[in-house]
């Protein structure tokens, strides 16, 4: 994985000092909260319901064990012994004191980490495929391109006060594990007919109030124009994105209102202009980055496991992904224990995951946008030993991509924007299905819960989505069906009137009953829904 050189380190250290100054000025009352707000936000510091929340960037979700140990130490030293892994492949701490934040950032900088641009109206942390460099189906590791864009977007002088936040994802396989088309810019690294690598640009996707799937605006940008093209996309947005209404300020609204063709025309014009400005890094920089992401030294070993222990066999079936080397798999550590808080990990668990990464996965971990952790390169021969240790630590839940693997935002338990609680609902739902022994029978079923319309829990993109709303002062939940964030991206549709907390749990069970009743061979919930449509589900829910 990427290691900072002295330049990168100096930039991050400078940022820590800058924030120390800013926080000091705020604590001394020399700047107002209003003036401090965008500064703390550009350092990932939010004021939540009970305390400050700090979001730490994990570029493209990749960590080494030293970094994971530090995240655990930070949880102990500055928080309450926990961290919360997020849908942006980051980690958040919910109980941070302003007085201590600069010290925390200095601790992060000591392991080549930061909280730069994890909030605010700027280019956020770049996300990517959590199986990058490991997946059997990828064209090439997308992370060198993500790292190039990380550096380009860090402290960008022109794009630090955009109309609204800006999220970029980079993938390099046809299987989309990063919800790429639901980003402000989604980039897929592809090969053209001449065998050259380049980037396909999708611009203007997003969830939130107005979910949109990003249209493709350029099928092939040569690799030595990647930054220039990105810069053109951003400049058109910075100049013409709406600033009169924060709910219409994302780039998806600009692309939608101008139309894809007109937005593309303006980008191409700006791009032609910028090509003469020499803003592109030398291709040698990309060549410098690539070796950091080179394969570790894989060795041949057994290609199968002994599945005689049914619990282990279930975990292997559910929680491992095919690797490009046939003696390895990528193993997913579920952070969705039964009735747990989705994405939460204690400092002990973080230390253990770090140790296991060191022992079994070439010192590498990944954070998934589904709020789980991946050990990307595990020898098949080591799987049983790994699983045994995970089980002992309460990290062996065999439920990846099942109805228990729920994505949930922090909701009303923490967030000042939320209308309804998400976490308790996720806990009750996973319990309900586990108790009934339904989980396995239902197979792949992605359930996602957001506590408000901002959609941090990706409810639009869930096979089943739940949206918390405020109905005359009480929490109410709308149910959506048919969303997907994968390569077959689609937006869920609302079933009809909402439910109270008990009601929505029953409703989820009813729609799964319909699925089990109507499904044909090999169909997932989503496939059945797409085939039979909304009506049978509606009938079951409301008649």
């Amino acid at each position, binding site marked *: 994985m990427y290691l900072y*050189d002295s*330049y*990168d380190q*100096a*930039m991050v250290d*400078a940022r820590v000092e*800058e924030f120390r*100054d*800013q926080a000091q*000025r705020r604590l001394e009352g*020399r700047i107002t909260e209003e*003036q401090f707000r*965008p*500064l703390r936000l550009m350092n990932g510091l939010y004021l939540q319901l009970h305390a400050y929340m700090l979001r730490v960037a994990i570029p493209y979700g990749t960590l080494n064990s030293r970094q994971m140990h530090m995240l655990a130490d930070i949880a102990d030293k500055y928080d309450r012994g926990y961290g919360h892994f997020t849908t942006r492949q980051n980690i958040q701490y919910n109980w941070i004191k302003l007085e201590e934040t600069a010290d925390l950032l200095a601790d992060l900088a000591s392991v080549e980490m930061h909280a730069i641009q994890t909030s605010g*109206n700027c280019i956020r942390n770049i996300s990517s495929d959590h199986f990058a460099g490991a997946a059997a189906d990828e064209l090439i590791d997308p992370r060198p391109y993500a790292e190039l864009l990380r*550096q*380009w977007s*860090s*402290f*960008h*002088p*022109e*794009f*630090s*006060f*955009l*109309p609204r936040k800006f999220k970029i994802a980079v993938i390099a396989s046809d299987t989309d594990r990063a919800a790429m088309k639901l980003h402000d810019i989604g980039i897929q690294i592809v090969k053209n007919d001449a065998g050259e690598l380049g980037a396909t640009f999708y611009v203007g996707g997003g969830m939130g109030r107005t979910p949109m799937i990003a249209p493709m605006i350029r099928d092939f940008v040569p690799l030595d124009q990647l930054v220039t093209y990105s810069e053109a996309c951003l*400049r058109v947005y*910075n*100049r013409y994105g709406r*600033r009169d209404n924060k709910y219409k300020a994302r780039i998806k609204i600009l692309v939608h209102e101008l139309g894809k063709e007109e937005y593309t025309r303006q980008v191409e014009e700006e791009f032609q*202009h910028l090509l003469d*400005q*020499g*803003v*592109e*890094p*030398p291709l*040698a*920089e990309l060549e*410098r980055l690539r070796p950091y992401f080179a394969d570790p030294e894989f060795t041949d070993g057994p290609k199968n496991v002994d599945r005689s222990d049914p619990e282990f066999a279930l975990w292997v079936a559910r929680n491992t992904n095919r690797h490009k080397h046939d003696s390895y798999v990528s193993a997913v550590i579920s952070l969705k224990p039964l009735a747990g808080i989705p994405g939460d990990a204690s400092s002990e668990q973080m230390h253990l995951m770090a140790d296991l990464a060191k022992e079994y996965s070439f010192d590498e971990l990944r954070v998934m946008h589904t709020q789980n952790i991946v050990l990307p390169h595990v020898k098949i021969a080591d799987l049983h030993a790994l699983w045994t240790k995970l089980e002992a630590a309460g990290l062996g839940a065999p439920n990846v991509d099942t109805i228990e693997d729920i994505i949930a935002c922090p909701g009303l338990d923490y967030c000042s924007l939320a209308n309804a609680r998400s976490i308790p609902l996720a806990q009750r739902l996973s319990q309900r299905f586990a108790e009934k022994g339904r989980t396995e029978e239902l197979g792949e079923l992605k359930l996602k819960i957001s506590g408000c319309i901002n959609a941090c829990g990706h409810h639009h993109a869930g096979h089943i989505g739940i949206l918390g709303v405020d109905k005359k002062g009480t929490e109410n939940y709308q149910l959506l069906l048919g969303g997907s964030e994968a390569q077959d991206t689609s937006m869920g549709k609302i079933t009809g009137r909402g439910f109270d907390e008990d009601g929505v749990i029953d409703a989820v069970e009813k729609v799964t009953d319909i699925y089990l009743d109507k499904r044909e061979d090999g169909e997932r919930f989503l496939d059945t829904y797409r085939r039979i449509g909304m009506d049978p589900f509606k009938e079951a829910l409301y008649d």
Partner: protein
Amino acid sequence: MTDQSQNQGDIQDWGTSPDQVQFRFRDDGIADVPAVTVDSCCDQTNATAVRIEPGDDARELLPFLDRLQLVEVNFPAYTDGRGYSAARVLREAGYAGELRAVGDVLVDQIGFMRRCGFDAFAPDKPINEDDAKTAFARWPEVYQKTTDARIPIWDLRHE
């Protein structure tokens, strides 16, 4: 857009005066001429100073760059970042006169503004001189190429 008659009738409201400029990184004499709107600038062949508001298209000024001594870019609110693009557009087109950031210009933005080509600053509220000095010198190096002649990190790596 402000119409021209309003602009001419109330010229004192337009543009900053030299004594409002707190920081300036130029050796030439400071222009002491009132700035006009972008619309007026395009209509009046003799205007030598212009003021860009966030909604203006800086590219409309490109045919007149030779005669301009001063371009003011107004930041009514520091959160509105359109002025950064306006500045770069002008510098990329070769504008060499004074580029002055005016309005809600705060210490935490002046480093970014400098990189986008601003070489004069007339903040509504004066900035603490020591804080400003620290802010202008904040970044040991930079990642991006702009027109400010700083060599980006990725070029330093491959010298």
